[in-house]
């Protein structure tokens, strides 16, 4: 069950991370913006840039291998089917799943969560039952649960967080009551960068018989995922946040759950037999992939996942930790700047506010220096409300970001109050 990423093929363990070599694989990062300044892309929590290996894989698929999958008997169809199912195997390896049938392709983490909420959770929910989420969730891991709770007369309860943006799980057992039917928690907070103690939460929820979905949209880009080790029941991944295409992602689900779940959507490719009286459904994962899926997207995603699995993740983690430390220090030195989210366990995400400057103004002003930042509530309004800020500016890093870019960011932010007078 403890499948791990294959041995790194590219970099030598223990060698320093060669960021320039990695950057050369991302064509978009070469561009300059107005005034000839290099683009400093620090909005990786929103979406990541794409390696040429992914771009080439998609072009190759549409140039040479495009056909609809699963039903044709001709060679081209079989080739396309093989590539699509190969992508599933790549996703399986990426999260360390035991069986490729545990990988369901969806549009992204949002659809993955909705699938689990509707097909797994909703049938188990009755009036007065409870679903548990955490205070640092993205809206996509709140709203689908709220919807099934509303439909079933169930109640949504919330694991609280402290002022540093860490989950307070001391009282978790008090929240895991006899009516708790599901727990959904993010692996990493998109707004604050907090890494949650997912493994411990899963163990404690399972001790009470409560299944757990982990929203991996922000975890998978930064942390080596091993669903066997985490022990979770479901894990969702967004393709475009792991350097893959938009419009594709996957949900890992334990096979015994998937086999017991009704379909999410009806259509072609998810049935065993159809008459006007009765339809029987295919086994997972096909049961959950109604209609022609995003074949080219899945194949592109597989190329990105393969790219990631060739990196030395000890070196990646060390590089990202250095970027985080550098950015935290450089930004903290700016008068009036306050970092929002100071968890002990964080990925390279720095959310901040600046006295006298609204986040939106910060975003516009640093853009002049080529710095792409996200500003606003980051689709996590409850987080913003709990921390008492209407909005933050957020720099979110990927392994291809550099220390020179951290310096450009800090200089650009330092200039904001000058511009605002």
């Amino acid at each position, binding site marked *: 069950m403890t499948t791990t990423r294959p041995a790194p093929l590219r970099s030598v363990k223990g060698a320093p991370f060669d960021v320039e070599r990695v950057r050369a694989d991302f064509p978009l990062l070469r561009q300059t*913006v*107005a*005034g000839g300044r290099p683009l400093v892309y620090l909005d990786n929590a929103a979406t990541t840039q794409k390696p040429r290996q992914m771009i080439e894989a998609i072009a190759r698929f549409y140039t040479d291998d495009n056909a609809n999958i699963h039903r044709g008997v001709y060679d081209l169809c079989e080739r396309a089917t093989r590539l699509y199912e190969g992508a599933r195997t790549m996703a399986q390896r990426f999260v360390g799943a035991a069986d490729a049938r545990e990988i369901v392709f969806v549009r992204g983490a949002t659809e993955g969560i909705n699938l689990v909420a509707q097909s797994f959770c909703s049938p188990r929910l009755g009036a007065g039952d409870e679903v548990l989420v955490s205070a640092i969730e993205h809206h996509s891991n709140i709203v689908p649960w709220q919807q099934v709770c509303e439909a079933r007369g169930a109640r949504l309860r919330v694991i609280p967080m402290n002022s540093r943006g860490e989950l307070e799980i001391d009282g978790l057992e008090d929240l895991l009551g006899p009516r708790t039917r599901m727990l959904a928690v993010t692996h990493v907070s998109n707004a604050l960068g907090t890494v949650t103690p997912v493994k411990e939460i899963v163990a404690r929820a399972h001790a009470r018989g409560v299944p757990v979905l982990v929203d991996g949209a922000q975890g998978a880009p930064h942390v080596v995922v091993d669903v066997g080790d985490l022990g979770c029941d479901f894990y969702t991944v967004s393709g475009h946040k792991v350097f893959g295409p938009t419009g594709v992602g996957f949900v890992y689900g334990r096979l015994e759950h998937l086999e017991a779940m009704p379909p999410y959507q009806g259509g072609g490719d998810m049935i065993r037999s159809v008459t006007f009286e009765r339809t029987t459904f295919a086994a997972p994962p096909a049961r959950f992939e109604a209609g022609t899926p995003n074949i080219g997207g899945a194949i592109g995603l597989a190329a990105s996942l393969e790219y990631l699995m060739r990196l030395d993740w000890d070196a990646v983690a060390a590089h990202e930790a250095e970027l985080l430390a550098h950015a935290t220090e450089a930004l903290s030195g700016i008068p009036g700047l306050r970092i929002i989210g100071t968890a002990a366990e964080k990925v390279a995400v720095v959310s901040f506010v600046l006295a006298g*400057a*609204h*986040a*939106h*103004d910060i975003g*516009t*002003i640093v*853009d*002049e220096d080529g710095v792409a930042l996200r*500003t*606003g*509530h980051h689709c996590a309004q409850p987080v*913003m409300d709990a921390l008492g800020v*209407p*909005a933050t500016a957020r720099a979110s890093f990927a392994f291809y970001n550099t220390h020179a870019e951290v310096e450009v960011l800090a200089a650009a932010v330092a200039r904001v109050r000058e*511009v*605002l*007078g």
Partner: protein
Amino acid sequence: MAELRELYQQVILDHNKNPRHHRRLAVPSHSAEGHNPLCGDRIHLDLKVEDGIIREIGFDGSGCAISTASASLMTTSVVGKTTAEAERLFDAFHAMVTDPAGPADPKALGKLAVFSGVRGFPARVKCANLPWHTLHAALSSEGVRVSTE
């Protein structure tokens, strides 16, 4: 890319730091809430309209420099005017920040013309427009909420 200094003009920066009519009215005849869910800007606007004339106006809330300055300059522009004149200013302002051709009569905008630079920053048009949409909502009916989404 458009020039940053065309966006953050001195008048705008001044109104952001020292917004005019920045208060709630004790007994407003018209009020509205404006909200930009994308960036979290919020504005509450109160009006006291008598005989079709905006006698008093006040706003508060939280927002970026552009929305705050836009609200402040809007209040100074419409106070003392008829509601019909205020609505015409709204149309002219909207045209200035969105229409490439600009407003039909730029002179009518007076000092509101400092917001012409917003047109070069499409992501910020909503910030400048929010107070005006809120004014329009307040005048159209009483006690409503508007959203720029």
